[in-house]
């Protein structure tokens, strides 16, 4: 059956290629050996992909998943994909020198955005790698004396998973709960610190709900107990002012593709005074002072540097715009719909992230209905599962409301017209789904849904 399907699919694709007569880039004989991935079917009225027919490319409101590359960033990167291809670690010729110079310029651009010294920046493949180096690397290095890690329930998957890995090795982890606003309770943090606590890891801006944790206060507590403080600032970089001195962080994870830079590059800030040491994850040529061996990808690093410099220059302008767009989106939706709840603190949040729950609507149906708007129910990593987000559950959001969450991500390139269209489509879709919903009808009649005794199935 499966092979039959595959064969028919293959035949269809073949005929499509033949009829559309499109030039396939650098096609080789290997392409005939294995079936090529199904091409999105294109007709003059739109595009059909994964069984969904769309008129055009959807408007993009998923900036927390990733952001488009800024043309100014691409402009900085392109020369390093052409003639300037040297390995930055080659010390014997001009190709190496010019690449090395570009990498060092990028390093100081990243450092200057976060108020660090360039010597404290290590380039990695992304924030996930930086988080892994921080959490596992620090604990492995200090494992003789330190056996305990404090983190929160709303961290990104890669921090939680690194913690679980440490747990299997016998380390103890405290997962701090968060309030209904998504913020960590400082008193709980203070009482969770033990003499053998080796690391506190709390993210600056949450990826799903966008709340900003009280970084300076957490940093002060960590300093008081002399515990290293790690923060995942992937969603904070270039969006809120970061000062590693004020925050008192020992380690900080940064990402390139959340700030209109390229994917596949990130950075790790590692404090020099007082010095924090980690056990490297990758061993090899000793690049990046041995903390992250492997050739530094010059074009990507240059892109990240350019993105950081741009972010520094444009932060104020972007902030003003994004805040106005967020208000426009929220007011537009709230003016036409009832039962809309903002997840997470309203005051302490990054404006570019608006996580809303629509009561009496099934979230997946809403997402399917909003096919012309590229939004997500939560993080991209967990967008394949139908489970409600663990972040929303940690906030104490009811199961039914956690199921209907949608995260609108607004960025540098979002327009007013896009926001208006998103409002229009969301309102339309929610109204349509509510019209079909028996629950909504009952609520309109004054029945409290929470009181209903559902019969067992």
């Amino acid at each position, binding site marked *: 059956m499966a092979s039959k399907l595959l064969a028919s699919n293959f035949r269809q694709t073949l005929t499509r290629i033949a009829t559309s007569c499109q030039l396939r880039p650098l096609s080789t004989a290997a392409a005939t050996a294995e079936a090529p991935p199904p091409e999105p079917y*294109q007709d003059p*009225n*739109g*595009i059909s992909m994964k069984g969904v027919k*769309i*008129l*055009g*490319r*959807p*408007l*993009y409101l998923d900036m927390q998943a990733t952001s*488009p590359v800024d*043309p*100014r960033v*691409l*402009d900085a990167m*392109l020369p390093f994909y052409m003639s300037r291809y040297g390995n930055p670690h080659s010390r014997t010729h001009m190709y190496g020198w010019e690449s090395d110079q570009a990498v060092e310029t990028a390093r100081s651009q990243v450092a200057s955005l976060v108020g660090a010294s360039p010597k404290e920046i290590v380039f990695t493949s992304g924030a996930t790698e930086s988080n892994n180096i921080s959490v596992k690397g620090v604990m492995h290095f200090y494992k003789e004396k330190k056996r305990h890690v404090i983190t929160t329930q709303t961290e990104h998957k890669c921090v939680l998973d690194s913690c679980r890995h440490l747990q299997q090795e016998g380390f103890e982890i405290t997962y701090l709960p968060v309030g209904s606003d998504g913020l960590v309770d400082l008193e709980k943090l203070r009482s969770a610190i033990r003499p053998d606590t080796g690391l506190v890891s709390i993210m600056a801006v949450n990826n799903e709900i966008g709340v900003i944790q009280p970084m300076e206060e957490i940093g002060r507590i960590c300093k008081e107990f002399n515990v290293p403080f790690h923060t995942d600032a992937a969603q904070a970089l270039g969006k809120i002012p970061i000062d590693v001195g004020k925050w008192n962080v020992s380690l900080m994870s940064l990402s390139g593709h959340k700030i209109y830079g390229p994917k596949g590059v990130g950075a790790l800030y590692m404090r020099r005074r007082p010095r924090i040491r980690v056990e490297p994850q990758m061993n090899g040529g000793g690049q990046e002072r041995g903390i992250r061996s492997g050739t530094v990808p010059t074009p990507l690093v240059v892109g990240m540097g350019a993105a950081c410099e741009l972010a520094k220059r444009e932060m104020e*302008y972007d902030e003003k715009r994004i805040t106005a767009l967020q208000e426009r989106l929220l007011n537009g939706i709230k003016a036409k719909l009832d039962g809309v709840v903002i997840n997470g603190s309203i005051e302490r949040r990054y404006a570019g992230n608006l996580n809303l729950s629509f009561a009496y609507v099934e979230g997946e149906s809403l997402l399917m209905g909003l096919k*012309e708007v590229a939004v997500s129910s939560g993080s991209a990593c967990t967008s394949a599962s139908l489970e409600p987000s663990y972040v929303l559950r940690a906030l104490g959001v009811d199961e039914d409301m956690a199921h209907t969450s949608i995260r609108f991500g607004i960025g*540098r*390139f*979002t*327009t007013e*017209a*896009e926001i208006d*269209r998103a409002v229009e489509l969301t309102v*339309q*879709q929610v109204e*349509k789904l509510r019209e079909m919903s028996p629950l909504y009808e009952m609520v309109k009649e004054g029945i409290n849904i929470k009181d209903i005794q559902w019969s067992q199935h």
Partner: protein
Amino acid sequence: MASSAAAAAAAASAPTRTEVLALFRSLLRTARRFSDYNIREYAKRRTIDAFRHNQNLSDLSSVSTAYCDGMSQLKIAQRQALVYQLYAPNIKNVMEIKTAPRNH
């Protein structure tokens, strides 16, 4: 490199009103050439906002710095508008499809 040096030399003396207006028009014209909806709108908006932000600059050196910066932005925009055109997707953004019927 040579072009930026030339731009710096030209900007050493403050740009004339005609030169500033010419830069403004070139930036807008280049912005319109971006095939990507979002980038095009951003380039237009950012140009207008930057010129509005700087319209009351009177200090000679800051005027020429701003002009010089604008010239380098123009160079980038011209190159990137071309790159974007080379790799433009076949399907337009939904925001550009105005007359298409929407069935819901």
